[in-house]
């Protein structure tokens, strides 16, 4: 009898029996997909949150407000107001004097040195520059915000845990006591950190800035843009509009696609062997960096420009040819202007890639410690991402903050460039 029953079991029953299981599977699969998307978004936000939370404090810098007496006996004993002489004067003494006045109980030589280390080694130069700007300040007593040392800065910003045992932290108890007293007196001030944007690199975190690296990035990108845009557009025009379909042009095409996937460090090896060792171009120069990045971004620009040319409908070309334009006139007067927005978008994206690139620039010596701000594409310099790499290696706690802040600036530049590219695409994109 059971046989009979089985034979009569309809397909729909079999389907219904398994339906619950199948739907559960469906839900699991969908949840996994959603989970993957959420995980991806989570990574993005974790990365950005981590960098921003570490870096935003670097935009302010701790200063100590002190009554500084510009003692003529120290600065300019001869009274000649000769800037050369003044530059050699002992401004450390001038900067330290008010500290001694505030803490008269500190007497020992070692204790005094510890007390002086509240101020940055850049503080005397701050005073020197004031005198250079206006010699009239000599002999006056002014209230000045002097830069604090990086350890003090970290303590005031709360990056150093006060509850750790004294041996484990960089700041000892006496120092904490002094800072607390200065804070009670209202002399510890946090001011916007303009030095971070204008200074070059420095061994002292409180004096280090991204100005030099930003200038280096600017010159490098300038060289890259000046070379890669015309060459990329030219190559795209030839391959898309003029080239005959034969083995040679096929080879060029395959070549470009492969170049786009060659690891960037290999381009660095090329730059080192060719531009520096063979042609004798200077090391660490934005010119060489720009040349290497040009070769690296060319495939991106060529591929984007070809896509832009492809999207121009053939009717435009036929119309131009029909009224008697030559092939070259058709392309330059009609096709190129219509494809230009797409080409520019591709170029901006290529430039954004070049701005974030680090590895090939390490190979050609743009990792040097450079204090001066470069004034041209032949001066030794470094670039923003390399500066990030250099600072990330530094042991001082304050450099973690600076590194994150430099990354924030780098990301802001990249976001600005990409947003600009997206806006351009939206604005000028034409549907035919």
């Amino acid at each position, binding site marked *: 009898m059971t046989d009979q029953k089985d034979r009569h079991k309809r397909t729909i029953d079999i389907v219904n029996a398994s339906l619950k299981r*199948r*739907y559960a*599977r*469906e839900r699991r*699969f*969908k949840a996994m*997909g959603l*989970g*993957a*998307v959420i995980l*991806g978004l989570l990574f*993005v936000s974790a*990365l950005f949150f981590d*960098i921003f939370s*570490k870096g935003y404090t670097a935009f302010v810098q701790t200063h100590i407000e002190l009554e500084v007496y510009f003692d003529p006996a120290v600065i300019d004993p001869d009274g000649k107001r000769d800037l050369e002489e003044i530059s050699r004067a002992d401004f450390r003494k001038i900067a330290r004097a008010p500290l001694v006045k505030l803490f008269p109980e500190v007497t020992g030589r070692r204790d005094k040195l510890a007390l002086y280390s509240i101020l940055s080694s850049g503080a005397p130069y701050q005073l020197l520059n004031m005198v250079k700007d206006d010699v009239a300040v000599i002999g006056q007593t002014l209230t000045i915000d002097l830069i604090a040392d990086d350890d003090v800065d970290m303590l005031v910003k709360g990056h150093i845990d006060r509850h750790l045992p004294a041996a484990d932290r960089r700041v000892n108890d006496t120092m904490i006591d002094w800072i607390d007293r200065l804070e009670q007196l209202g002399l510890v001030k946090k001011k916007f950190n303009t030095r971070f944007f204008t200074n070059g690199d420095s061994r002292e975190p409180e004096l280090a800035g991204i100005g030099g690296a930003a200038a280096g990035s600017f010159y490098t990108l300038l060289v890259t843009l000046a070379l890669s845009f*015309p*060459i990329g557009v*030219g*190559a795209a*025009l*030839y391959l898309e509009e*003029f*080239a005959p379909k034969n083995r040679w042009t096929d*080879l*060029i095409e395959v070549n*470009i696609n*492969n*170049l786009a996937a060659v*690891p*960037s*460090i*290999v*381009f660095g*090896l*090329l730059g*080192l*062997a*060719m531009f520096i060792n063979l*042609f*004798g171009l200077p090391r660490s120069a934005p010119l060489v960096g720009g040349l290497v990045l040009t070769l690296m971004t*060319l495939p991106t620009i*060529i591929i984007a420009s070809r896509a832009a040319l492809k999207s121009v409908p053939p009717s435009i070309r036929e119309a131009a040819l029909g009224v008697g334009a030559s092939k070259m006139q058709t392309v330059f007067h009609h096709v190129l202007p219509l494809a230009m927005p797409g080409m520019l978008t591709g170029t901006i994206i290529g430039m954004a890639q070049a701005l*974030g*690139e*680090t*590895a090939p620039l*390490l*190979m050609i010596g743009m990792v040097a410690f450079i204090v001066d701000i470069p004034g041209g594409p032949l001066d030794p310099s470094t670039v923003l*991402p*390399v500066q*990030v*790499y250099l600072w*990330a290696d530094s042991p001082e706690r304050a450099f*973690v903050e600076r*590194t*994150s802040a430099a*990354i924030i600036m*780098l990301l802001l530049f*990249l976001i600005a460039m*990409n947003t600009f590219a997206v806006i351009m695409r939206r604005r000028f994109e034409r549907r035919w």
Partner: protein
Amino acid sequence: MQFSVLVMILLGVMAAAYHLGRRRSLASVGGRSGVRNLHSLPAYYGFYTALWAGLPALLVAGLWVFFEGSLITSMVVQSLPASLRDVPPERLGLLVNDITNLANGNIVSTQVDAGMQRAADHMNELRTIGRVALAAVALSIALAAGSLAWRAIGPKMRARNRVERIVSGLLIGSSLIAILTTVGIVLSVLFESFRFFQKIPVTDFLFGLEWSPQVALRADQVGASGAFGSVPLFAGTLLISFIALLVAVPIGLMAAIYLADYASPRLRSYAKPVLEVLAGVPTVVYGFFAALTLAPAIRGAGEAMGMTVSSESALAAGLVMGVMIIPFVSSLSDDVINAVPQSLRDAAYALGATRSETIRQVVLPAALPGIMGGVLLAASRAIGETMIVVMAAGLSANLTANPLESVTTVTVQIVTLLVGDQEFDSAKTLAAFALGLLLFIVTLGLNIVALHIVRKYREQYE
């Protein structure tokens, strides 16, 4: 004369040549009224003159800038007294470096003696002569070529065709740069690798199990064997890349499937660009994140569970690299999943399959070759990635499969060998180029296979 000034002057000459050429073409047919008798539009005569005036001179100037350095250096070396010149090549390189620094007014590593000072003065003198000579030569070439072109202008001259031929030559030239780049890469790494293999046998390099590139300076030095076996480096690279793919492939693929087949258009329009952001973040930022946030976290977690974790573990570098390549996997998979024809999906739905069954049993098998291509591309990206591993992975070449230990990679070693001061002939420096050659070959192979698969697959449904 400053080079930029020279270029500015040449551009000025070109502008002037344009006007003169245009004027002459119009004059040759008796002014504006006779313009119909000209073969080409007057502007083409202008362009023709300007191109002749500018291009040869700019070419000469560009070539000079490229070869100035090596030319002057070799001339200075020739002029050095024999006592200074007859030293081993490394010493000579050092000396030339010092002379260059002296000539540039930079700090010099050794005591400056009279011979060096003379050489530096000689170098500066040569530079000045070179600059002046270049300016004179470039300007006279510009004027000569420009005036020749100008004199040839007449109503019968086919100026447009000539200009178009020059322009198409320029276009071909720019597309050849892509080929030249590849040739340059291959030649530069091949040449240096060849010199490396003269010192170290190829088999030692390819199959050696030990990597310690410090070459012993003295015979009795400890810990500097100068072993150049690349196997541990590739093992480390593969370990980190494998971890990265383990993260990126499931997440990237599932995200692509969800966004392509489940998500509402609204969610897709927001989530896709945000995921793409991961591809646009500079790798040095990932390196910083891996070294300063993730590695300590993993170490802490490992220690809490009673495991010893290296502070430069392969796991941290691999995980972060995986996050970096998620968008590669997802956008490539997205492309191929969308390329599977809707008719296949509809057929599966009509048979009563659920969405997930359709995806798993119809869409994915159909898209599999494309997805494999995407994964291979992502793998080649992971193998060639540099900054993350330089910052987060270690330097010691351990042959291990334990992701909690520190390993090193090919790219890390290239960077360590080449960053900083180096002599260009030591096996240590040359080894970096040999590694570069190997890296180039491996990634090129992966790319060719991947592109081939992707292309072949695309043709199937077109």
